[in-house]
């Protein structure tokens, strides 16, 4: 028997055919013993299954099962309330990506320095011009020396008369 007819017989049994197609299949069942036998088999298998699903009981007590659910619900709710607001998530995602690029750039520069790809003239002096800066550094390639000047901006004295601070020589 062709597969198409087999599936039509099944669709007829399941009430999934149009009335015209259903009439044609019904007529075929009348005259074709093979089609009739298959239809009967499917009908009886279907009838056997319906309403005869095995009963199963959850192998946990009511209290234990509920406690698991309750715990999971409160965990999910806590996760929901402690999650960051949308704008913080946005910053985290986008600024995070930018800072990633910054780290990558710093690594490239550091690598270039290590490989002497950057002129030593450019590294002669490193200082920080910001007002609130509390430390200044100086590097001399010719002397093979770095000087770091650490000041204490909170001290009144530091504003009027710079404290000699601490000199670190490498």
């Amino acid at each position, binding site marked *: 028997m062709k*597969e198409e007819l*087999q*599936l039509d017989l*099944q*669709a007829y049994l*399941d009430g*999934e055919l149009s009335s015209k197609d259903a009439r044609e299949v019904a007529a075929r069942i009348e005259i074709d013993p*093979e089609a009739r*036998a*298959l239809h*009967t*088999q*499917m009908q*009886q*298998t*279907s*009838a*056997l*299954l*319906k309403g*005869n*699903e*095995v*009963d*199963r*009981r*959850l*192998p*946990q007590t*009511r209290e234990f*099962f*509920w406690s*698991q*659910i*309750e715990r*999971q*619900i409160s965990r*999910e709710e806590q996760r929901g309330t402690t999650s960051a607001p949308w704008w913080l998530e946005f910053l985290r995602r986008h600024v995070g990506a930018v800072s990633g690029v910054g780290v990558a750039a710093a690594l490239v520069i550091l690598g270039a320095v290590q490989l002497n790809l950057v002129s030593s003239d450019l590294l002669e002096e490193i200082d920080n011009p910001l007002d609130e800066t509390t430390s200044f550094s100086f590097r001399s390639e010719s002397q093979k020396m770095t000087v770091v000047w650490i000041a204490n901006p909170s001290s009144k004295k530091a504003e009027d008369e710079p404290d000699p601070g601490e000199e670190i020589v490498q």
Partner: protein
Amino acid sequence: MASKKDYPSMDDVGLFKAAQRGDMQAFEELVARHRDKIYARAFSMMRNEEDAIDLSQEAWVKAWQRLKQFQGESSFLTWMTRIVINLCLDQLRKQKRQRSESIEEMEEESGGVERQMPVVTPNPTEKLERTELRARIDRALGQLSYEHRTVLILHEFEELEYKEIAKRMQCSIGTVMSRLFYARRKMAVLMASYRKEELR
């Protein structure tokens, strides 16, 4: 003073509405009332106690989170059953992806052994104890591939139409029809073989 509610005497609709307002005790009563059925559906699909417990538990958590989405188009149990079925289908799909190409798949594509099966009619006059019949059906279901078993469960037990099954199983209606056909034939053969085993 707030009156104490008698949850066990309330119907599903009343409990459900109370749960929608955030009443967890009402929800707990719904869980207690239907937990066996939800677990049984998960077990019938997964054939594994551990997975069935985990997925039925997850279904209840999801139901709590989606209570407001339920508009009462069907019964609460039907709605819950749909949730657990979807979770089981997701899990089965994940498991299938993890497996290498199975023999079941190859059989399905070629029509498998069911194509050559003779027509076997389960004997309707055979008087089996209902418990025994159910046990046989369950054993036979356990021997089907998950695609065949799922399509049978959704059609015969959940009474879903081909279109709805196709949507849930993410396949075509033609595939549903083909799977259902071979699943039924295989079930008929398995049921008959159990009978022969017993007669020996």
